């Protein structure tokens, strides 16, 4: 299989006025084409940081990343933004919607930038809006909608251009279970039908159970990795919970909630 993203020895240090603050301690990570991988780990463990680095939004302090086999060190700004524009869909943890644009405009922005024809573009927006149930709010501005609606808008924007690599940072964090399931299902279908490669950060074991492989990060290192292989999603979910328990109590409340969710869902 082709390696979509290959990260080697990624280190990230934030320097805050003289005191250095290491976040990532040398992470090796390979994402293969068509993979649906998950990343879990305690809050502040560096998940978002890692995702940003993989998305070329942030630069690692040291280490190298290869995208489709080419090192980003050799790419210029133009090429990097072309990669983000043409290949990448990013669902941000903090949504990153433009407050000057309506929901609809936010969603179609990637298509507009890619200069897709108007007739094609509007059809795609309607389609995706229906899928995520945000049709009624299409003409609203971000400051007029709720957090969950924002998250669905952000997700819509990330996947509207059928990107070959989707990075999702807690895409279900602000969603009710119905919406969360819808989103996860669409990610799953993108992965299956469109062969999109997906890397998803989540605190939610239920969401993570959609992945084929889940990496656990702790204190800036890859702590362990779980592969779903042929286990059912229910069993995989249980395994995930075990690892999370092992990782430490800090996540207990989330797991607890997830358990409840699990009770309802399965």
């Amino acid at each position, binding site marked *: 299989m082709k390696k979509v993203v290959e990260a080697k020895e990624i280190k990230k240090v934030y320097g805050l006025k003289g005191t250095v603050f290491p976040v990532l301690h040398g992470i090796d990570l390979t994402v293969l084409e068509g993979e649906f991988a998950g990343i879990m780990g305690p809050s502040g463990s560096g998940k978002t940081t890692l995702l940003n680095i993989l*998305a070329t*939004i942030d630069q690692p302090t040291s280490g190298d990343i290869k995208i489709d086999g080419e090192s980003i060190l050799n790419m210029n*700004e*133009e090429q990097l*933004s*072309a*990669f*983000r*524009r*043409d290949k*990448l869909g*990013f669902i*941000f943890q903090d949504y*990153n*919607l*433009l*407050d*000057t*644009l309506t929901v609809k*405009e936010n969603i*179609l*922005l*990637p*298509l*507009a*930038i890619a*200069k897709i024809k*108007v007739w094609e*573009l*509007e059809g795609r927006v309607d389609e995706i809006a229906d899928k995520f149930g945000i049709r009624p709010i299409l003409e609203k*501005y971000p*400051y007029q909608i709720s957090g969950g609606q924002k998250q669905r808008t952000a997700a819509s*924007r990330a996947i509207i251009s059928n990107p070959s690599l989707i990075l999702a940072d807690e895409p279900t964090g602000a969603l009710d279970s119905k919406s969360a399931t819808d989103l996860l299902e669409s990610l799953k279908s993108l992965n299956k039908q469109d062969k999109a490669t997906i890397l998803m950060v989540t605190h939610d074991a239920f969401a993570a159970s959609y992945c084929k492989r889940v990496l656990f990060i702790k204190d800036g290192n890859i702590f362990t990795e779980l592969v779903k292989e042929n286990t059912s999603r229910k069993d995989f979910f249980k395994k995930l919970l075990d690892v999370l328990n092992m990782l430490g109590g800090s996540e207990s409340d989330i797991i607890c909630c997830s358990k409840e969710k699990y009770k309802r869902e399965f």
Partner: protein
Amino acid sequence: MTLFAVAKKNIKGNFKSYLIYFISMLFSVVIYYTFVSLQYSTEIAKGIESSQAMQSIFMVASVILILFVSVFILYSNNTFARKRKKEVGLYSLLGLQRKTIGRMLFYENFIMGTVVLVIGIAVGTFLSRLFSMILIRLLGISVDVGMVFSLKAVINTTIVFMAIILFTSIQGYRLIYKFKLIELFRAEQVGEQQPKTSVISGILAVLCLVLGYWFSFQRFSNNEEVLSNIGITLVGIILGTILLFSSAVVLLLKMKKRNKKSYYNGMNLVTTSNLVYRIKGNSRMLSVISLLSAVALSAVTVGVGMYYGFEENARLATPFSYMYISQDETFNKSVDNIIRGDEEHSVVAQMNISVAKSKGEASSSDILSGREANADENPVKIISVGQYNKIANILELTALPSIENEKTIAIRPMYTDYESSDYEGETITLNLPKEDITLEFVGMTVERVINWSYPDVMIVVNDEAYNKIEAQSSTVDYVGYVVEDQKTTKKTTDALAAIKMPQSKLSTFYTEYRLGIEGAAFNVFILGFLGLVFIMATGSIIYFKQLSEVTSDKPRYEILSKIGVSNRDIHMSILKQNAFIFGLPLVIGVAHYMAIINFLKRFFSNLAGVNLIQPIVLCVIIFGFIYAIYFGVTVNSSTKSVSGKSIPIVGALVTLVFMLMIALVGALLWTTPPAEKEESYTGEKVILELPKPTGQYEVGTTEIHLVDDTRVDPWVNDKVRELMISIWYPAQEESEEKALYMKPKAAKYYDENTVTTIGLHPGQIDLSGTVTNAWLNAPVENSDKGWPVILYSPGGTVPRNFGTAVVEDLASRGYVVVTVDHTYETSAVEFPGERLETGKLKAMNAETILKMLDVRVDDMRYVLDQLAEIQDGKNPDHEQSELPLGLGRALNLTKVGIFGHSAGGATSAQVMYEDDRVDAGIDMDGTMGYMPDYPLPVAKYGLNRPFMLMNSGYNKDGEVDSHLTADDRNSFWKNSTGWKLDLAIPEGAHYTFTDYQILFPQLDRKLSISPRVIQQSIGTAESDQVFEAQKNYIAAFFELHLKDIPQPLLDSPSTLYPEVEFIK
């Protein structure tokens, strides 16, 4: 840590956001200081002849500047304050008392203000040198300007800005009380609301603009119309602009949004939505910028246009550096010697030009008016096309095409804006001794080939026709010289003036050029300076606004970058947004400017006939350049603040344009011919001579200083009214000395200020050495009943001295004549103790003029009261100087007359209307009121006692000025029941009725004066003849009405004085 220290730390910490505010303050200080220090510059004042005028122009300009600067600072302060709301909110959240925070903000503002002031003055010191150099270049004088540092300017600037800083500091203090905590936090978060728009207000905007523009193109014929037109134009444009930006532009953007195809195309989405999002906050700014740009452009264009028009007029009026009509051999030779003896201005070309002169009749009086026909026996000048083209070749003018037989091309008369089309279908018939030749006009040329003289009717015919005309008419041979550097030929001009003969009509380019150059230079400088400040300030306002916006836009661009928009596209979007914000007001401002300039062109008489295309293009280009620099800098700073990088090509372009500007200014500075060294006049001073009085008595005179304790001075308000009067009377015998024409201090003032307005230099005329024919304080000649008394009131701002010739003549015929200066209206009055009181009048509007006339009437009646006191043996002189022996006895106050020139004439009529003691009066060329709306009561109701009108010249429509053509005198005439007479001297001019009538020709004989000045002041008639006539008619009038001696002269026109017409 004290609050003060915290404040200091804050400034350091917030340096970046402070910087913008800091720079805008600095900019204001620098500009203001530069300006004020120019105003106080003694070097410049020394180099300038009419320094008084300069001071007042600078005064007005600095008031405008200060208003503008305060608004500018307040604006930037507001923008800045909004940025800091959040910070203030944080402080209060941390538990700092509002009072403490307020004090802190106050200190911050204050520290910064002080620093700005110091740096501003330092920078201003350098800049003011540059600006004074520009001014001096424009004036064409040579003064060494060192670094201009004037304490007065520093103090002035400090006071003004301390006041502004204090005000803004207090505002900063109040800021925290005005807002609620939650608002302070949300200050930057609340999205600017999408503006609501209505199609109606969009349409209204367009309607307003159309209305405003339309009225700016309307013709106006009187003051009323000027006011209403300019009012409608301004209101239309201002309202239209505001509506345009608050609705029409938003509408336009929304329409753009609706066009999905382009809206959903790439970054258009972001660019347009950003503009819509901002437009509400920006619309006010954009309207202001548009209007300011229009004002700035108009100001600069008017200034440049006047300067340009003045140079152009000088060139047209005197195409040759020197020109005269060929005389005898010796004269021609000596002229040639003088011109060729001037090595600094070598002769480039010399030409003999023969011009035929003929009587004629034109199909339109615009081409040859009755007035022009009267002014010269042969008013039409004819030149052959061959001759014309030869000159055109030498002067580098465009040649004329060949002309058919019986056709002719007109040369445009000076000071008109005739066009070729005005001549279409018109003809001129030359009345030659043997035949009449009728020629049809086939065109007109602007370029003139003979130095100007009146009458100004010139036509070009083909050589064959010319020969035919020449054979049977008189010809005049002109000799013209072209020399190098003709702007600096002062010495030669003076030398030529010294030998000139009146019939040689010698004229020089230099004389014409220097006439009014100061006014033109000041206009262009001040208007240019103000325009520049306005432009720079508008550019800065956009810059600050855009920069503060881009700071809050930064997160948006970061998001865009995250989803794969390249820096290049982001930069392009920023560029486009800025292009819109800069471009829109530029386009609309230029459109407004075109409308305004169209109006102003007809409003300012100095712009009449000036081809403004060149100045307009120049101004728009310079304006565009400056704007482009601001645009580039703004785009650069914005992109830098967003991505840390700037668009390389924009940076390079800005540098390029900036260099170009510098080069342009440099070129302008260094290519204008170096100013000549201004040596003070060393030639012989012209001594003026007044004509000998014609009556039988010697004349005596005395001066009296009157102080009217009962009247607060209406012009200065903080003291009682003081007047200087002179009494002229028949003298028994000579005294020790003759009285001076003008007292020394006053003479100095007029030499420095008034003489320059006719194009002469201070020191050329010996004003203080000029004496009258009157014996100072001589004893008064006895008379049984006493002498009739005549009061004299001079024209507006004119001193009483300029009426001396006629006054002395009357006194010599047996009258006591009392001349009165109207203090603070008269340009300068000298009181005892060498105290000079100068004119305090501001704008000459209806209010001022009516008040002026009111004050004058009071002055004259008060003087009459004081004469009664003198008759009673009292001495009203404030210093109690001894009165001439027998003065009291000599007054016959039962026979009182009054006369005056211009405003003094109107005064005379109104005094008679109000005061029965006056029996008869004369108005010499004075409008009775402020027409058309404010006629004086005397014009409305007339008089029942003898009154004579004397008028000169023609009105705008070419009719002889008289009670038949002037509304005020018409009404006066109809309502007057007493003895009345209306005399006109059509070929005279307004100042015919002053000593100018006899003094100007004396000056013209010895100095180089522009023929235009003479024509405009005293007309074209033979000057001694006109003086004789007016003197005798005035005397006859008073002899008849104050002495009851019959005067046949007043019955019908006299062959002795053909220039005087009786208007019935």
